[in-house]
Each structure stands twice: as C-alpha cells, then as structure tokens.
C-alpha cells in the first residue's frame, strides 16, 4: 500500500519536473506553432551555466544567471535562426530546431566532457519521511516551483495582452501584424521564456536523486513530449496535468514492473506514450488543448 503511495508521490514530483519542461514546449508552440526539438539543448545550457558558476557566486545567484543565460540562448536561437524562417511550414521549422539542437548539444557536451557536475543546490539528499513513505526535498521544491511558475503563466496568459498577442501571431502573422503585434518581439520573448523555464527544469533534473548534470541529462526532454501533447500543446494547465500524468504513469509502471512482466519489462518510458495515445484517441487535441475547427 504505502509502496503505492510512495510511487504515487514520486510520480507526482517527477511529473512536476516534466511539467516544467512541457511548459517550455507549450510557450513556444503557442507563440509560433513550432514543436521545439532544441529544448533539450536549452536544458543543458541552463544547467551548465548554473553548474559552472555556483562555486563562485553561490547557488541562488548562479541559478538566476543560469536562467538568464538559457533565456539568452533561447532568444539567440530565435533571433539568429528561427526569425529567418517566419512563414515557413511548421514541420520545416521543427526540423530547423533539430539542426540547432545538434549544434548546441555538441558544443555543450564537448564542454561537459566526461564530467558529472553538481548544481550545488541547498537541498542535498535530505528526504522528508512521513510514516514509511519518504520523498526527497528536491522533489518537493520541484513541485512547488512547477506549481508556482505554471500559475504565473496561467495568469499572465489570461490577464495580460501577451497571451493574446502570442496566439494571434501564431495563428496568422499577417493579421496579427495588422493588429500591431510585434511579431519579432513575441517570438523572441517566447523563446527567451522557454529558455528560462528550461534552466529551472534542468536544475530539478540534475539534483538528487539524480547524480548531477552530464551529457545525457538532456535526454529527459523527450519525456516532456507526451506530457505536452496529452495535456494539449497550447495549454499551460495541460502542461501541468500532462507532466503529472506522465510522471505517475512512469513511476507506477516501473514500480509494478514485476506485476506487469507479461508486457515485457522496462515499460517505464513506454507507458506514458501508451497513455498518451489512449487520451488522444478520446480527445484528439489533448486534455486541455483547443480543438480543431470544423466549419466551412
């Protein structure tokens, strides 16, 4: 029983990290309708900056710089590359991000070399134990951070014109421009924000229970795909819920692996995709995504 609770909690907390990553996808998708494969390298960038600075300037400062750094990288990607492609087909843009990702990842992994860097977070490996159920402080922090950030974005999207501008720009650049939307700014902002979010996510990806930042860290970004999709690619709430669903599914699928042997072992990262597929069958635009119109 309390194994279940433990797995559940762990799933939720891991899920909140995924939610953070997914949020990054969502922000960019909202503003540009591009599926951003370069998010993985943004993660790495943010983490790397934080990791390499925390010794000198302390963790929190380092984290801030890391966030800023990743934001700059994101913005740079938009400014130097994506901007040139405005108006092209979305799958084309997706491919471009792949190219960018290859470049960035190669560079960052080269710098990382064979190291495993710690981000010098204050939580260490301390855990909170209630009864026989224990959960790492880092994970509680992750949960809080995700909840906070996502509410912030919900509010931002609802109560500032930013969200409207984003969606307008995404749906029809020309018409948006006619409304006085500064296309450049909107997408630049989106990429910067995504970068910042990636940095935060990187933090929680690399703290305990994972040993630290190293070249394989970025692979975790993949886990956010099903999260972002099953939540609905253009919905912030979706990102949160999606993240949690993925986290929990994964955790349970792993924890009860021995009960699920008939499906073959190591279902861990397959399960989220199965759940995603089922959800998409029922709701083609994800749980919270805006449905596609059927009117002529």
């Amino acid at each position, binding site marked *: 029983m309390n194994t279940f609770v433990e797995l559940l909690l762990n799933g939720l907390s891991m899920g909140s990290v995924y939610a953070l990553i997914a949020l990054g996808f969502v922000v960019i998708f909202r503003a540009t309708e591009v599926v951003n494969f370069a998010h993985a390298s943004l993660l790495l960038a943010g983490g790397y900056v934080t990791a390499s600075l925390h010794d000198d300037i302390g963790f929190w400062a380092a984290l801030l710089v890391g966030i800023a750094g990743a934001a700059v990288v994101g913005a740079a990607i938009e400014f130097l590359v994506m901007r040139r492609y405005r108006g092209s087909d979305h799958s084309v843009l997706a491919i471009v991000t792949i190219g960018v990702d290859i470049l960035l990842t190669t560079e960052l992994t080269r710098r990382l070399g*064979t190291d495993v860097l710690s981000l010098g977070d204050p939580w260490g490996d301390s855990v909170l134990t209630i009864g026989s159920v224990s959960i790492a402080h880092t994970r509680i922090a992750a949960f809080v951070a995700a909840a906070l950030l996502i509410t912030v974005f919900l509010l931002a999207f609802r109560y500032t014109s930013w969200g409207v501008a984003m969606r307008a720009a995404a749906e029809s650049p020309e018409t948006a421009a006619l409304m006085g939307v500064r296309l450049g700014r909107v997408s630049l902002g989106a990429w910067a924000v995504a970068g910042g979010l990636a940095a935060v996510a990187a933090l929680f990806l690399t703290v305990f229970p994972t040993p630290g930042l190293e070249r394989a860290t970025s692979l975790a970004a993949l886990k956010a795909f099903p999260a972002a999709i099953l939540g609905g690619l253009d919905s912030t709430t979706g990102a949160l819920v999606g993240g949690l669903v993925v986290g929990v599914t994964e955790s349970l699928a792993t924890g009860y692996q021995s009960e699920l042997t008939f499906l073959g072992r190591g279902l861990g990262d397959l399960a989220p995709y199965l759940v995603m597929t089922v959800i998409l069958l029922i709701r083609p635009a994800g749980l919270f995504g805006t449905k596609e119109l059927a009117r002529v």
Partner: protein
Amino acid sequence: EDDKGDKEGKGGVKTGVGVSADTITLGVLTDMTGVYATLGKSVTQAQQLYVKQTNADGGICGRKLKLTVRDHGYDPQKAVAGYTELEPDVLGFAQFIGSPFVAAVKQRVDSNKGLVLPQAWSANLLGSPYVRVVGSTYDLETINAIDYLMKEKGLKKGDNLGHVYFEGDYGENALKGSKYMAKKSGLTVVEQKIKATDNDMTAQVAALKKAGVKGVVISAGPRQAASLVGVAAAGKFDVPIIGNNSAFAPQLLGTQAGPALAKNYYVASPTLPIGADTPVAKKLVADYKAAYPKDALDNGVQAGWTAASVFGEALKKACKSKDLTREGLDKALLTINSYDTGFGVTQDFSDPKAPSSKESVILRPDKSVTGGMKVAREPEAAEAAQSYTTGG
C-alpha cells in the same frame, strides 16, 4: 582484399593487410560523441598513450604502431560504415565500442580474420577466434559480485536479491549471471529493467524495498548506480549494493551521491583498479595524468590500456614467429595463456570460446585514492564462476 596476398616483409617477416615495411595500422571504432562518450574518450586516449610509448621505445617488430580512429557516436550506420572503411587497411581493431555493432560485423570478421578487441564484456561476443573479449564477461563478473555479497555481506540462501539492469546486451548478459548464481545458491532474483535514459532510481528502490531484497546488483551506468545508492541511503534502505565494472565513474564521488557511494557501494571489476600499486598501474597513472591533465582516471583508461597491451603482446609474439599477417596474429594470440597486463589478473587467450579470465576484483569507492577505487577483495573466481560455462 586484393593486397591480402601475403608478402615477405623486411626482416623476413611475413606481412599482410595493414602492415607495411615500417608501420602497423590498427583500427579504433569508438564513441566519443554518443551515449558511450565517457568510456570511448578514456579508452581511446589510453590506447593512444600506449601507442605513443611503444613507438617511443622502438615500436614492434621494427615497425611503428598507428591508430586510425573513427568516432561513430553510437550510430549503427556510421559504425558499420567505419568498419567497412577501415577493415581493408588495418591489421585489426584495438577497440570497438558497441556490442550490437560488433555482432553486426561478426560474419565479416570471421571471413576476413581481422582481430577485434571489443570494449564490451558480453558473453554473446565470444565464440569467434577473431573477436576476443579481454577479461571476464559481465555474467561471470556478476556471479563473482554476488559471491562477494554472500561471502562477505551476509546475503544468504533463500534471500531475495535485487538486480537492476540495463535493457540490452550488457544488462541481459549480467542477468544471465545473476540467474545462474541464484539457481546455484538458492536466491531469488527480483528484476528491475531500466533504460539508459532513466536517471532517477526512486521507483526502482521503492519496488525493491517492497520485495524486501537483502542485496542489490546493478548492471547499468554510473548515473543509475549513483542514483540507486543515493536514494537507498536517503530512504534508510541499507542493503549492500554492488555494480558491474561499468557501473562506476570516479566523477561521481564529487557529487551528492559521493558519501553514500563510499559508504555502501561495491564494484566488481575484471582487473585491479587503476589506482592499484603495481608498477604498470603507477606508470600508467603518471603518464596519463601527464598526457591528459584535464581528464579523469576512470576504469575506461585501464580497460583501453589493457586491450592495447594485449594487442601489443600478440604482435610481439607474432613478430617472433615472423608472421605479422592476420592469421599469424591470431596464432600468436592463441599461444598467450598467462599474460599479466600489470593489473593483477593473468589473461589466457588460448580458448576462443572463453573470456580471457574468469576472475573479478571487488572494489569499493574511495575519494582519497587515484581513480577513486580501492580493493576490497583480491582477484578471485567464485566456484560458481569456475563451473559456469559462459554464454550458456
């Protein structure tokens, strides 16, 4: 194939593919940009070091050694392409990372007889006289590891043993070992299969806890090991944890997981650690530090070195018998039956069906020593290992 027609080289030495009057070219198919980058980097650097030194003291058979390196980034297409490219121009391969790829070219190896020393210790690679695994295979290693847990760490008949292993050749071969050992000594294995992308072992620990295991074997990467040990420690779940050779990297000792690892983690290794106080080891450490000051001294270094020196030894023997052709090299290798690479374990290559040794050393992490490993149990092969027929 065309220059296969063996010629009388200088010094009356018969030569063939990859051997010219003054150089012996060896291929290296490594991964320095993909998932095994960490391993690949160390191994390759160590082997380049070996080559540099051998050439410094005159090379082998009056010829200089030359490594042609191809970095396939663990991309099957590049790997196979790399093999196809190098095979016609090299005598053999001192390194080949990625056992699926080795398997992919195995047929061709058998037909062109070019010796391959894979940097993988899977029993599935055995059986070909031209693909030779240096040191004990994962399954044997695992058997020895469990043997250690039982002899020293109070794991006993009837207990549950957790085994966290990678999907793929490495993990599954190790699992063979633990299954065999379990059968032998009345344990029950609780399997936890993971993937290289899983970095957080919380769920696995929870599951193992639930199953009430009394010890854990981990056949995965360093990260997974670190996470596993860390989570277990944090969750007051202190059963002994032992990993295969590839499940540790000294870099980990610098991270959060460091203390926990030092406290309750063991590693089974085919040879003494790089930090061992054998002359060879000391020299290697010194030279490597000198050559690559920035890089960590992990087990990849001595794995690479060992492989290279085995290749070198074989070449020397082949040179004695005046035959540096691929066949000659192979014959030479088969005559090597007690070669000490300088890391405490003697290698025996006389039987193509078996790995060159069945022994494992048990190590435990220790920040203070070079390479972060010190010996917990001297080289030894469990009797279960003796009776175990590899690949079976």
